[in-house]
């Protein structure tokens, strides 16, 4: 069996996993809050995007007709921009709730987000029902192409490329902008941030908004592959969790590399011993963490205390 297609496939899967973990990584890295609602926000992003692409509202003075008359690619791009922004607002609301848990046992933050995950999932079920939903994507990125005698999905390559782009943009934001510098400082030393006269409250709000927006973005990108149903979030939060531990809390590239490793592990076992493909990521985690307590690139974190 030719190995190359399987490696390429594993890499693309890895980039998608890294994208799923990105928002989770940001929040846990900077704020040391484990956001268990990550998966529900992931799902919410996809649902909101679905509504933006194909709204089903009453027509007020022809606005609706004019809107759905817009070409699909335009509505799709709009959804990719607007849906994460709307979910970020929900995320900011969650952060405001979270404030009551700061300075307490980190477990409370985790439990609050666990509750939020339940509430969000049930709300989705209440609004959109339990039915399987579809997120339409533009013609240009759907369908298949032939390469080397094998058929590949165009959307998958688009999604992997998009994931790569998102990863690079977040990295540039963290490394090359003043906001990023403050966030990074906050990750290591919140006293320092305060001493510099930066408003820590606003910083946390910003980080949460960004983290949840990234969760929503991942949801929009993954939906055409995974499908969309109210409980889809649990499929996202578990790998995100796992990737962060594998990569090490607080390490950007740790998360990205761990995502790619998990993708390769799942993809390659999927190709050669498919029945073990899901177990492989847990075994990888246990193997790595047994030898490296803080994952591949982890730093010391208050969450350990």
């Amino acid at each position: 069996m030719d190995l190359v297609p399987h490696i390429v496939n594993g890499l693309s899967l890895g980039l998608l996993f890294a994208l799923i973990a990105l928002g989770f990584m940001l929040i846990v890295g900077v704020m040391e809050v484990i956001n268990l609602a990550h998966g529900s926000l992931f799902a919410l992003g996809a649902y909101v995007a679905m509504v933006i692409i194909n709204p089903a509202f009453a027509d007020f003075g022809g606005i609706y007709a004019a809107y759905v008359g817009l070409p699909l690619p335009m509505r799709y791009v709009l959804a990719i921009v607007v849906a994460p922004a709307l979910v970020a607002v929900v995320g900011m609301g969650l952060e405001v709730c979270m404030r009551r848990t700061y300075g307490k046992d980190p477990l409370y933050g985790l439990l609050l987000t666990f509750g939020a995950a339940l509430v969000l999932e049930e709300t989705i079920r209440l609004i959109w029902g339990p039915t399987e939903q579809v997120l339409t994507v533009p013609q240009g990125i759907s369908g298949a192409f032939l390469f080397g005698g094998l058929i590949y999905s165009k959307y998958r390559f688009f999604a992997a490329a998009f994931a790569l782009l998102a990863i690079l943009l977040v990295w540039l934001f963290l490394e090359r902008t003043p906001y990023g510098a403050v966030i990074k400082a906050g990750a290591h030393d919140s006293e320092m941030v305060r001493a510099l006269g930066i408003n820590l409250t606003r910083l946390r709000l910003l980080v949460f908004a960004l983290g949840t927006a990234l969760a929503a973005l991942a949801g929009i990108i993954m939906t055409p592959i995974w499908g969309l149903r109210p409980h889809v979030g649990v499929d996202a939060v578990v790998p995100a969790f796992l990737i962060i531990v594998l990569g090490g809390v607080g390490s950007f590239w740790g998360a990205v590399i761990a995502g790619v490793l998990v993708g390769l592990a799942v993809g390659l076992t999927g190709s050669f011993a498919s029945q073990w493909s899901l177990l492989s990521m847990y075994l990888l985690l246990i193997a790595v963490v047994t030898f490296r307590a803080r994952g591949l690139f982890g730093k010391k974190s208050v969450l350990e205390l």
Partner: protein
Amino acid sequence: MTPTTDGGRLITGPMLILFAALVTLPFWVQSVGLYQYLGVEVAIWMIYALGFNLLLGYGGLPSFGHGAFLGVGAYAFGLAQFHVLENLWVGLLAAILVGIVAGGIVGLFLAHRRGIYFALLTVAFGQVFWFVSLKWFSVTGGEDGLLGIPRPSADFGLVEFDLSSNLSLYYFTLAVLMIVVVALWRLVHSPFGKVVRAIKQNETRASFLGYNVRLYKWAVFTLSATTAALAGGLFAMAQQSAFPDVMNLVSSGTIVMMVLIGGGFVSFWGPVIGVTVFFVARDVIGSITETWLLWFGLMFMLSVLFKPEGVAGLWQDSSGESPA
């Protein structure tokens, strides 16, 4: 969780209140609109939750994969009935032994972990157990579960009690619960319990004082897992089956939720209260609306936000004394 004056006693006031309430339960359970079988599950979950709180409340170690041990205990009970001997004691012993082994092995990986890494590794191990229970269907019956597990009678040599009705099983479970309550109460007030609390407060200091922190954490984890497995054995009897779904992430998260909402952080009785609140809320709200998890989730969020010490904390505030 401060030691109270009751700590040295074998049987305390709250214990007597709890036992009295539970012993008389079959007489009033129907009239409050509930049913006997629910009593069995509540008693089993109390055992599970009390053992879990040893880890969470006393050890400060949040496990998000504890359902694995409940499940393992249930499978062990069932498999022992089918392949070893159809006998209650054999089944429960098998559940306990498998709990010790599984908890002991997982504990080895976790004993030197703290905080988030501890929590995450418990998730990973929980998923592995769940996955194996689904996959190894020649042994576990896969997603259909292990069906037709008998309820052997409780043979005490001189006396033999038939456990086939939910009522008799309830009294048996209650007896086990009483033993677990007394044993755990003694344990948390023993020198061992004090060291565990010291480790929770400051691991470094505890190790400077000469305690083998890893050994203590390993022991707490294994004990807690074993209690869960014992509860699992009883659960297999109640359900007459063992299913993989008690091992999944959501189920494991639910026990954390129950213990916290009851006030496991501040009181020995938190888990007992939490289990009662959860089961009754689920039964009552669940029969009114399909979206009961929405309401329970909201309740839980409000509880974490405004009263993270849970129901037990609320009670302590209002009565001005510790219920423990």
